[in-house]
């Protein structure tokens, strides 16, 4: 297996050369796809999807990502097991959700074998250990000592989202929301979990990260349930209740579809000024290097955002049959495009004064990075300024250089959080690190 993996770059570069020679990319301004009105080029379907994958090298001692002017960055914790999301508890403790993909879906066509083989080499960065647990970090930034760690919860099922309401801590595993009793200061959860609501899991569990947040009054939970395919290739029946955000009653566990047509919604969080629910969404692949732009959007109750039938309103996807003109007719254009294939997975609003003033009120977005285009896109944390509860201005880079000069991944950003001291935390799943970004002056 290992020697076969060594051959992978050779095979990939041969394929790339072939693809490059056949289809030279038209010059395209990526910036034209950042903002409320992205430029949408014509659909391009290739004989072999454009691919450029970043193999994982990890961080050498002393290496860090690069931060924008006025900021500084440090590794808060290293040597974790595929950390994917973060949650700050009221007392300042930080939960690090370490999570692995569920067992691979059944192979239904030759492409599944090829894609599984390719993904093995690049997305996980080798086996980081057992994972599927939550680690608690307790630290005092002023003290300068590394955080103390404890295993908060273990043996979970591909967890991602966490939300605390009063003394009830909810963990969104890939197949269920499970509630646990939590008391301020707990280093570990001793009580048993109780399943609140089952969520769509396997045997096919294509987009498996279940993002979670609670309404301000604590009565409702919102959970992101990603689609079960790129574009319905596993059959439309596999998409039942997926590509949607569910609203779950916290007392009874009853749920309804709050919004749909969202291919892979993550980073669920409430915008502080308007109180609206926001999400970042991974849009569909294999329509060309500049389609379809991933986006962030406020989520309206009962709204339909297009997937799988259309994108950005009424732009039809020719790969879906039978079509649903009745749904396409009411498809909503999302609020703000982040450009194509950047893979946004983390979203947090800056509600603190400890970071430079320009960030106040805006959104940080963790972009895990592209595979379905020849030149990398994403692999960074960007900032989108907000005003009056709406995006107002161009996204700018905040944390970059997750890739090294050769295009190898030292790390990839996923989930974000603001800690109690007002610093920005970044979960880096292949660098197995939590990064802490704070004002340079402090």
């Amino acid at each position: 297996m290992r020697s076969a993996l060594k051959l992978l770059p050779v095979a990939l570069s041969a394929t790339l050369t072939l693809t490059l020679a056949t289809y030279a990319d038209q010059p395209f301004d990526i910036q034209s796809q950042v903002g409320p009105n992205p430029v949408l080029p014509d659909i391009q379907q290739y004989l072999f999807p454009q691919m450029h994958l970043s193999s994982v090298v990890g961080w050498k001692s002393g290496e860090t990502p690069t931060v924008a002017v006025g900021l500084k960055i440090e590794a808060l914790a290293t040597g974790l097991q595929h950390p994917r999301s973060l949650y700050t508890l009221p007392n300042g403790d930080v939960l690090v959700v370490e999570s692995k993909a569920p067992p691979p879906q059944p192979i239904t066509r030759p492409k599944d074998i090829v894609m599984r083989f390719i993904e093995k080499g690049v997305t996980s960065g080798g086996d980081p250990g057992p994972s599927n647990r939550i680690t608690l970090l307790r630290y005092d930034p002023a003290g300068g000592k590394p955080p103390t760690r404890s295993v908060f919860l273990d043996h979970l099922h591909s967890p991602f989202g966490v939300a605390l309401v009063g003394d009830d801590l909810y963990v969104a595993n890939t197949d269920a929301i499970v509630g646990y009793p939590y008391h301020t200061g707990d280093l570990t959860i001793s009580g048993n979990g109780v399943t609140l609501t089952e969520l769509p899991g396997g045997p096919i569990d294509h987009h498996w990260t279940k993002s979670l947040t609670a309404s301000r009054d604590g009565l409702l939970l919102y959970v992101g349930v990603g689609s079960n395919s790129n574009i319905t290739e596993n059959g439309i029946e596999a998409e039942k209740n997926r590509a949607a955000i569910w609203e779950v009653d916290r007392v009874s566990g009853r749920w309804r579809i709050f919004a749909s047509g969202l291919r892979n919604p993550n980073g669920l969080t409430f915008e502080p000024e308007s109180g609206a629910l926001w999400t970042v969404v991974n849009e569909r692949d294999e329509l060309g290097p500049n389609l379809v732009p991933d986006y962030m959007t406020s989520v309206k109750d009962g709204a339909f955002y297009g997937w799988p039938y259309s994108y950005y309103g009424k732009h039809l996807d020719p790969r879906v049959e039978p079509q649903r003109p009745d749904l396409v007719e009411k498809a909503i254009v999302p609020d703000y495009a982040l450009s194509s294939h950047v893979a946004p997975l983390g979203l947090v609003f800056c509600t603190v004064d400890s970071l430079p003033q320009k960030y106040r009120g805006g959104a940080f977005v963790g972009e895990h990075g592209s595979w379905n285009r020849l030149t990398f896109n994403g692999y960074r944390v960007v900032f989108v300024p907000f005003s009056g509860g709406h995006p107002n201005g161009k996204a700018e880079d905040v944390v970059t250089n997750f890739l090294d000069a050769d295009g190898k991944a030292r790390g990839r950003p996923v989930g974000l959080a603001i800690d109690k001291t007002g610093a920005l935390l970044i979960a880096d799943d292949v660098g197995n690190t939590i990064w802490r970004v704070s004002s340079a002056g402090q």
Partner: protein
Amino acid sequence: MSKTHAEGNPLSIEYPRSRMRILRQPIHPMLVPIPIACIVGVLLTDLTYWWSAEMMWANCSAWLVTVGVIFGYLAAIFGLIDFLGSRSIRAQSPAWPHAIGNVVLLILATLNMFVHSRDAWTSVVPWGLALSAAAVLILLFTAWMGRAPVYEHRVGVAE
């Protein structure tokens, strides 16, 4: 050339021999039924997917075209060795269109395999289906041309 032709006294003649054999069985004719069956099968499953939009049929097509291409290349390798290694095989007039036609067929089938690696509807409609139909037409021609070297000129037929 003339001495290998299957005429005259059956006891004294020598049929054109396949170069690649297992226990005197020629390999190329053993392999060709596999890609032939697959290429015909893809057209049928493509048509069924076109009519039904049921993803299982697109998946069937993807498997058939992939297996067909893999065994098609294997058959081509052994066929080419026979073709290049035996002047008496090359000398038969149907052998040339059989060989050239099958090279074209393999190129089409390879393209078709990549088209079928797309997701959902456009893995079949319209280009996958069109390539599958074109491949079957070429196959009818090349299979006919491959029939003559065996059934008339007895290539690979045991002496």
